[in-house]
């Protein structure tokens, strides 16, 4: 069981929401944040801070609201589906602002206290930080940045702080549902996607929350600087699957 305060950024929906629910169930006092207003259906025991992690002042504010955080989960992320030549300065600021600078801002705010008390940081990286998804240039690069920052923090701020990353594959969130809905043949697209997952299904936000909870727990006391992939085996297989053509 967890104890103490856990900060989860971007806990309003999707993967972040599942992480919030899991950590609350584990016994953490959870503080989460998002750029919008508090979602109506958020557990009343969970504190909400309206904040943008891309802004250093907001990150400080989240940290102060949490008090003595024992766990920081950097989940907030945005995705822009463009190549380098299509991406604007605004796109760069949006993706790098939240995905890279947001993780940096939060870690910088939380680390001084966490180093004194001991604690753990879990970042949400991505399989796309290791191999590229097409037309996701800034997103892919931002997630590789998260992996690098994860290792740096583990190296620089151990032994009192452990820092790890989870690299999700295809997780069924509203974002993924939208992508299928846009396919020429949504059912065929769904079938094809399933074939590429050795476990025979796509991921759920809870699958990621399970790994986050484990990395935060004492069972993972010797795990630091690691980037663990949770993708149903998808990236263990070649991108080329003649069998499904």
């Amino acid at each position, binding site marked *: 069981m967890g104890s103490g305060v856990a900060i989860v950024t971007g806990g309003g929906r999707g993967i972040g929401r599942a992480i919030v629910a899991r950590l609350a169930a584990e016994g953490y006092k959870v503080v989460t944040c998002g750029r919008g207003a508090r979602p109506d259906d958020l557990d009343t025991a969970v504190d909400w801070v309206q904040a943008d992690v891309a802004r250093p002042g907001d990150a400080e504010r989240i940290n102060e609201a949490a008090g003595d955080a024992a766990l920081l989960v950097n989940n907030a992320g945005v995705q822009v589906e463009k190549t380098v030549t299509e991406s604007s300065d605004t796109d760069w600021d949006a993706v790098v602002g939240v995905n890279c600078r947001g993780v940096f801002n939060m870690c910088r705010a939380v680390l001084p206290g966490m180093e004194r008390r001991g604690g753990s940081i879990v970042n949400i990286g991505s*399989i796309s930080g290791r*191999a*590229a*998804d097409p037309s996701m240039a800034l997103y892919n690069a931002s997630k590789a940045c998260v992996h690098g920052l994860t290792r740096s923090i583990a190296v620089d701020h151990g032994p009192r702080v452990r820092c790890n990353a989870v690299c999700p*594959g295809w997780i069924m969130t509203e974002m993924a549902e939208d992508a299928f809905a846009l396919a020429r043949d949504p059912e065929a697209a769904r079938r094809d996607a399933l074939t*590429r997952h050795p476990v025979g299904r796509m991921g759920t936000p809870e699958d990621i929350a399970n790994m986050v909870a484990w990395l935060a727990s004492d069972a993972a006391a010797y795990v630091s600087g690691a980037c663990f992939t949770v993708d149903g085996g998808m990236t263990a297989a*070649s991108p*080329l699957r*003649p069998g499904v*053509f």
Partner: protein
Amino acid sequence: MTLAGRTALVTGGRGGIGRAICARLLREGATVYAADLSEGGSLGDEGADSAEFVRFDVTREEDAKSVMALVAQARGRLDILVNAAGIEIEKTIEDTTLEEWNRSFAVNVTGTFLTSKHALPLLRAAARQTGGASIVNFGSYDGFIADPGLAAYCATKGAVHALTRAMACDHGPEGIRVNAVCPGYIDTPMLQSFFGGEGSGGGGKSIDDLQQAVRDVHPLRRYGTPEDIANLVNWLSSDEARYASGQLWVLDGGLSAQVQQMRL
């Protein structure tokens, strides 16, 4: 002529990729021995080059000794060893017999071990005379990520990757560099055989349609040629690569740089 005066031995030298390597090393001025089970190899006699053929079963230690004795007598040293001999069993572990498993390891892993082991005195002789010698092993992108129904092959290539690093560690101080090239889909008889097997599960598509679909998944929109691989082997074997050792060089047209492509 980057390899003038050098002596090279290429195992699997009459196979799809091995033959292209022999041709390339010859063009760069090396004296080349093409070692293989038969002079025709997997492509038959067509397109044979002027590399000197030596009969060599890489799984037999006596063969390794006699091939190296032959090179020692003729040349006195070996500058370049390319361990390109390999086989592929297209099965899951459940369907793979123990004999097939052992055969895969015998050729792909033990063959690399035995050939390198008995080539070392000649490679050392070359390193003493010229300052360096090079071994290029054959890994595969399948040593990093799996193709379905190639279990033993994937495992042997993972073993070759680890062996490459170990050999680089042990023999670097003697001036011997060791690297592995890790090809993706290369147009060889081995690949055509793989298409044949996979094609039957591909919804009745013709092999031509299947090949086009495969090309489309590659960022460079083609699969590789044996010459693409020979280019890298040539570079790794040359003085240009004198600081390159212990590395696994993936050459796959960008295939493994991407996440699996959902068909949306």
